[in-house]
């Protein structure tokens, strides 16, 4: 990799997942210090991160920004790109899970979990989600928006914990094929996004 690349992510979990994916797919060990953790999408435009984005431009490099789409991919994309323009910066943006749908890293992780092997776990967790849905339906209307459903982070955590796998976000091993399928077609949009910069 000759080009100066910095990968801006929201947290350590994103860094570890992307680091594993880049290594498996492109055979490249992208150093930790080339990631810039922002601590959330709204913090991309804190001065410290603007300095990093400016530095990339001074190096004639590329700033890859990979954030969660969350509830609305379109509004997240528009918000980010308008601020980028306002600050006279350039970025390449990808929003989890697939740059098309709403969702987040966990949505993508759950779509690449090895469900064939661990079908029973996911059936069990689906029942748990249904149960929580009933709980949510009965929840007082004015407080309903405070509930976060479905609990995707908890599902990924449980999936690993119950199988005695490392649960800490920055230490998880996404290259372990028993639990994760990095050949899943769900990853194609992300791989297509990364490919020009890592091959």
């Amino acid at each position, binding site marked *: 990799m000759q080009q100066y690349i910095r990968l801006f992510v929201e947290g350590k979990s994103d860094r570890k997942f992307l680091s594993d994916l880049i290594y498996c797919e492109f055979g490249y060990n992208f150093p930790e210090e080339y990631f810039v*953790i922002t601590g959330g999408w709204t913090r991309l435009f804190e*001065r410290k991160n603007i300095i990093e984005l400016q530095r990339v*431009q*001074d*190096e*004639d490099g590329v700033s890859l920004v990979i954030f969660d789409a969350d509830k609305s991919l379109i509004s997240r994309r528009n918000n980010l790109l308008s601020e980028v323009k306002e600050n006279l910066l350039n970025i390449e943006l990808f929003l989890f899970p697939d740059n098309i749908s709403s969702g987040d890293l966990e949505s993508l992780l759950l779509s690449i979990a090895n469900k064939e092997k661990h079908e029973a776990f996911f059936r069990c967790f689906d029942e748990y989600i249904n149960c929580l849905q009933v709980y949510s339906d009965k929840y007082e209307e004015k407080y309903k928006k405070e509930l976060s459903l479905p609990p995707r982070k908890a599902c990924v955590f449980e999936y690993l914990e119950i199988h005695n796998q490392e649960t800490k976000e920055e230490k998880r091993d996404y290259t372990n094929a028993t639990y994760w399928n990095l050949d899943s077609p769900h990853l194609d949009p992300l791989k297509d996004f990364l490919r020009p910069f890592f091959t």
Partner: protein
Amino acid sequence: MLAAGGVEPEVFLSLNKVREIFKLDVDAIRGFFYNLDFQNQPFIKSEWLAESGETSLRETHLVAVESNVFPVEEIDTGRSKANVLIATPTDVRVNQFDLITKRKENDETIVRVQFSSSGGGAVSVKGETKLSEAIVFLPSTTTQEPTLRRVAYLKENRLEGPLLELLQKIDSRIVGIEVINERLLVDVKGTAKLMPLGLLGDGLKKAMSIMATIIGTDSSTIVIIDEIENGLHYSVHKELWKDIITIISRTRAQVFVTTHNIETLKYLQEVLEDDVEFQPKVRCYNIARTKKAGFKAYKYTYKDFESALEMETEIRN
């Protein structure tokens, strides 16, 4: 360093000494020009704060000259009036370099330093100059002679208190510092005689060199500390940062510190976090050689600096 050299030419000579370049010839001069190319002329804008509280803008140029005529003729370059008979990188006819500091408001030359490159190392200064102690460069490895001189000054003026306190935090057995017959001696509890500084650790020598300099500063002083962490025990870092900031808050000296060490930066951040009054007094700069914009300094305020360390953003490359 260039702006500092604009008032105190000795800075250039001492910087070369640190680089272990002792002659002042063409090759020694080349080191001050980016990519060793005389055509890349350094140009620094700086803001100077006078005792009166007024600020003035200054521009400092370093230009290579190929004429044997002394002084050389001034030519208007468009950017400033300077002598610009520029040599090519391979052109050994360059035999002089001039450091010109001008007041931006009226283009008046404040200091003009002419360095002869004939090997003689002659330096001619025109204009205002400051005291030779105005700019102090502390290299990464300490030497005893300047420390001795500075400690003697502190003793004479009864200013050694903060120095002794810091040394006692490093080694609680130390009860005094003495300068006797051009030797720096330390009074260590339980020893039969005063102990030469050289027998104590590198960390103590380093801390003493820094503190002895900082305590003796005033508002016209600039101190440049290179690789502050060298030789220092990790437990001393926080105390040293605290002392440096406390003292310069009082003396209003300006201190530039360089480091590549992340621990050093983390200790600084902890000190700033503990005392909000310190926070606006310190700025962190990442000096980088970039592909498109050349050399560039990226400024981090306390908040940016804290956030960079918290998020593990690499600010040292």
